[in-house]
């Protein structure tokens, strides 16, 4: 293409020479003279060729590459400018890519099963009540499977089915799930080795187990002869019948073992035992709403059959919710992730506007060059194209730096993510993330360059040529607009950050009702095969406590069946004998040994605590917390009254004392009161050992575990942590959110102030002549300073006003993530309008000072 153009140009020029020579010969010149003359009037051939080539307008890729090369050269001439813009881009692109990769990994990355879009979870829901969503029970499962037609099949999973693995090696606690036989078929997963269990094995409670790939590798060294081997689980021999592939980690990567879900007949009852996760696969072509409609019909009919358990007040009944399986995983973090994405988007936008402002400044300083180009015949479109192409090197720099930054962030930050975050394993630096990074860098630069390019395209050549340094009014206006927008976005981000900081400080002030200082905790679950009688279990706990209490540095020790803030609970209804008219009260059910309340720092308010005289055969006793006491008995004394689990045949127990209420689930929600039974009278297989220590709790960990090992070398101990660690874990998500949002707020403040500084100092520079004249006419320094600061002030005030107007809806969007503050919190509202003007003032002091140095004589002379 180009070579042909070159050849044609050569031929064209030689044709010109030929015609001219011929004419000269016809006019009577000699051949030699004619040829020389022709060359003379043609002019400098090299220059002609060069100039002509330049007009060829580089086709396609070549033209863009040429412009990009030009842009690169311009950038290298202004290294400071280039680094500022590149840093802005790297920061914006890097952070947003990192956040996106988390959002993608958690929320968008499809589940690792074939046709994951058809997988759903089924929940129960009590409309209008406290329980908007709760697990399925075994009867749900049989009814849903039998009556629905929307699903290929529905599987049932019991997630709490952990096993003590003993035998060769260290005893350990395995996180396992009991599943219905059809789960692998619903998920469409084949075992790597061996087989999965059958319906018959499920119904006969066969002792067979399917291992995860990791357990197989970790514990059994990838033994190829593992199939058929018996492993001791909770003291019983289970036959290994299969090993699943490495990517099968259902429901989360923490699960390492699957056993058949045996459902004893008394488990299958209406209104009870909502202990299961139900996972189904929609038939091809069936949508979630269609399945939902069918399930609603089934539940309505079911409520008619079982009005006692499933009919609610006001004509409502227990509903079923059909929900994509992925949504169930992401539900707890969805809100937080959207907020992070929005915040980083705002930051990116501010960075983008900064780039715009800097490009405008460059366009101004290059106004003459652009005017010359226009004069030489460059069209508006051509100028726009060139401006865009020139910033492509910037976008390449930004993309490379941003990807590197995001990669670094991801490498280090995944460990900082709260352990409770779902699908962490799916977060990574993959193709969609890379595509996002590249797309976002291109988009940012193009958006940023559009406004400057428009202004450049409008450049009036005559005007610019005449006024060598004055800029076009539109440019200043565009810049003021951009800065105002930046300030507004910054106000919103600072406002959001302030809301999170205020929420965190409110949460930190919450008193959980127990002490977190100097408390060591660990968990154990007894192997029932070894201690078949409840009495034996209770005695086992007592022996361990005796040993632990004998250690020096231990102040108190006790067991409880569920540790506060550890993410697990055991809840259910209780009845109060004296108040039969009260419906069953939802409570935390706790079994505790003597010593637990002292160790956990839960105060006794009335009566007495459990003692070693509360035996299985002594009168049945219990404790309630002060919240329940107040709710049921008001100011009356509850001691001596009786309560029981809200089932008819359960025994009544006498209230012997009232203890302080604690926050069991989270610090942010007070869900329900607690009732306690002595471990001897309501024995639990799983227990948390709580040890109050004099020194730092960690220093006693080894000694306490040694005592347990001495008592029973086969007893696995797990989740060994100080109470402080459990506390930090509950706070981790909020902590991280607060840090990230505040950081985004601060970063946007810096970027916005940078933009403001740029605009104010540029405008001040433009008005130097005016300032000089004003001063020559007698204006004082203060007057000039006020002019400059006034401009900055106007921009900031407009931005703040706009920002505050936007802060209101933003605060409302954050509402569900806040604690202890309202979405229109006054303190948070004034943070940004106070911080911003101060910082803005500081940023404009420099330009203002420079303006006062305007020397009337020299500026006028320069005119």
């Amino acid at each position, binding site marked *: 293409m180009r070579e042909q153009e070159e050849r044609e*140009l050569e*031929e064209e020029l030689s044709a010109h020479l030929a*015609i001219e020579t011929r004419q000269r010969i016809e006019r009577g010149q000699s051949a030699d003279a004619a040829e020389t003359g022709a060359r003379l009037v*043609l002019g400098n*051939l090299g220059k002609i060729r060069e100039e*002509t080539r330049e007009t060829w307008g580089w086709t396609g890729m070549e033209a863009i590459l040429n412009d990009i090369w030009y842009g690169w050269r311009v950038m290298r001439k202004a290294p400071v400018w280039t680094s500022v813009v590149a840093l802005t881009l790297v920061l914006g692109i890097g952070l947003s890519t990192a956040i996106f990769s988390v959002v993608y990994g958690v929320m968008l990355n499809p589940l690792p099963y074939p046709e994951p879009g058809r997988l759903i979870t089924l929940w129960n829901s009590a409309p209008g009540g406290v329980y908007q969503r709760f697990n399925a029970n075994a009867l749900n499962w049989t009814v849903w499977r039998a009556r629905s037609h929307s699903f290929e099949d529905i599987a049932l999973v019991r997630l709490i089915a952990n096993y003590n693995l003993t035998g060769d090696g260290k005893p350990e606690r395995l996180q396992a799930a009991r599943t219905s036989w059809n789960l692998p078929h619903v998920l469409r997963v084949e075992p790597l080795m061996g087989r999965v269990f059958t319906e018959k094995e499920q119904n006969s409670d066969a002792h067979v187990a399917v291992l995860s790939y990791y357990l197989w590798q970790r514990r059994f060294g990838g033994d190829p002869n593992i199939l058929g081997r018996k492993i001791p689980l909770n003291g019983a021999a289970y036959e290994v019948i299969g090993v699943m592939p490495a990517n099968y980690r259902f429901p989360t990567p923490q699960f390492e073992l699957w056993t058949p879900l045996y459902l004893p007949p008394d488990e299958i009852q209406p209104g009870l035992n909502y202990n299961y996760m139900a996972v189904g696969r929609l038939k091809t072509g069936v949508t979630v709403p269609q399945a939902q409609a069918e399930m609603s019909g089934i539940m309505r009919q079911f409520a008619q059959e079982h009005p006692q358990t499933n009919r609610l007040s006001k004509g409502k009944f227990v509903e079923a919710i059909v929900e994509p399986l992925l949504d169930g995983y992401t539900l707890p973090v969805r809100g937080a992730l959207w907020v992070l994405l929005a915040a980083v988007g705002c930051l990116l936008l501010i960075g983008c506007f900064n780039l715009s402002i800097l490009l405008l400044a460059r366009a101004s300083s290059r106004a003459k060059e652009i005017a010359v180009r226009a004069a030489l015949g460059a069209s508006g479109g051509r100028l726009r194209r060139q401006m865009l192409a020139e910033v492509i090197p910037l976008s390449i720099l930004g993309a490379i730096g941003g990807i590197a930054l995001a990669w670094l962030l991801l490498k280090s930050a995944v460990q900082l993510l709260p352990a409770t975050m779902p699908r962490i394993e799916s977060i990574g630096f993959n193709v969609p993330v890379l595509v996002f990074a590249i797309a976002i860098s291109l988009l940012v630069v193009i958006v940023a360059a559009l406004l400057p390019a428009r202004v450049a395209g409008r450049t009036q050549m005559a005007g610019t040529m005449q006024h060598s340094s004055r800029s076009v009014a539109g440019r200043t206006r565009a810049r003021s607009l951009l800065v105002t927008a930046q300030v507004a976005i910054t106000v919103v981000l600072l406002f959001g950050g302030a809301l999170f900081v205020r929420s965190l400080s409110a949460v930190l002030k919450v008193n959980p009702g127990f002490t977190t200082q100097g408390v060591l905790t660990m968990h154990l679950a007894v192997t029932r095969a070894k201690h078949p009688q409840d009495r034996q279990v209770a005695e086992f706990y007592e022996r361990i406590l005796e040993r632990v209490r004998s250690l020096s540095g231990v102040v108190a020790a006790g067991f409880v069946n569920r540790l506060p803030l550890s993410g697990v609970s055991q809840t259910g209804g209780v009845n109060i004998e004296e108040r039969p008219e009260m419906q069953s009260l939802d409570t935390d059910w706790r079994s505790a040994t003597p010593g637990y309340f002292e160790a956990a720092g839960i105060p006794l308010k009335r009566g007495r605590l459990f003692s070693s005289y509360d035996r299985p055969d002594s009168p049945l006793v219990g404790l309630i917390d002060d919240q329940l006491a107040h709710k049921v008995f008001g100011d009356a004394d509850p001691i001596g009254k009786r309560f029981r689990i809200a089932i008819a045949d359960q025994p009544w127990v006498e209230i012997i004392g009232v203890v302080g209420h604690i926050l069991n689930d989270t610090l942010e929600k007070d869900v329900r009161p607690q009732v306690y039974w002595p471990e001897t009278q309501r024995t639990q297989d799983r227990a948390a050992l709580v040890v109050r220590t004099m020194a730092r709790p960690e220093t006693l960990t080894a000694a306490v575990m040694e005592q347990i090992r001495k008592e029973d070398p086969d007893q696995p101990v797990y989740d060994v942590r100080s109470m402080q660690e459990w506390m930090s874990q509950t706070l981790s998500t909020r902590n991280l959110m607060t840090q990230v949002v505040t950081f985004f707020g601060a970063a946007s403040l810096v970027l916005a102030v940078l933009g403001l500084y740029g605009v104010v100092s540029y405008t001040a520079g433009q008005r130097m002549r005016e300032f000089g004249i004003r001063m020559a006419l007698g204006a004082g320094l203060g007057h000039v300073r006020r002019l400059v600061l006034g401009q900055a002030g106007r921009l900031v005030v407009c931005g703040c006003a706009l920002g505050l107007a936007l802060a209101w809806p933003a605060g409302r969007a954050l509402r569900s993530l806040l604690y202890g503050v309202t979405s229109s919190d006054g303190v948070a509202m004034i943070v940004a309008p106070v911080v911003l003007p101060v910082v803005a003032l500081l940023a404009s002091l420099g330009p203002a000072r420079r303006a006062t140095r305007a020397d009337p004589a020299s500026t006028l002379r320069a005119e």
Partner: protein
Amino acid sequence: MADKLEVLQGTLDLLILRTLQWGPQHGHGIGQAIRTKSDDLLQLEHGSLYPALHRLRRDALIESEWGMTENKQRAKFYRLTRAGKKRLVAEESKWKLFVKTVAKVLRPQE
């Protein structure tokens, strides 16, 4: 030589378009026509035509085609396109306005 005029930046395009109004012409012919028409007052380096011609062609105001001169010389002939004709009309009226305005400004004040 003292009376010769430099071609004003920007007016060359107009002159070329105008010249091509009478039909296709090659580079040499265009230059010659401009010189003749201006009674040799417009000084025009022959070579400076070519960048202008190529630029106009790029902007699709003119198009080119190889042909033969009367003297059997192969040469590139340029011809106005529709867009070129439109541009010519616009540029002409602009030019007239410009001349009128400049003349008005230069007219001795009464």
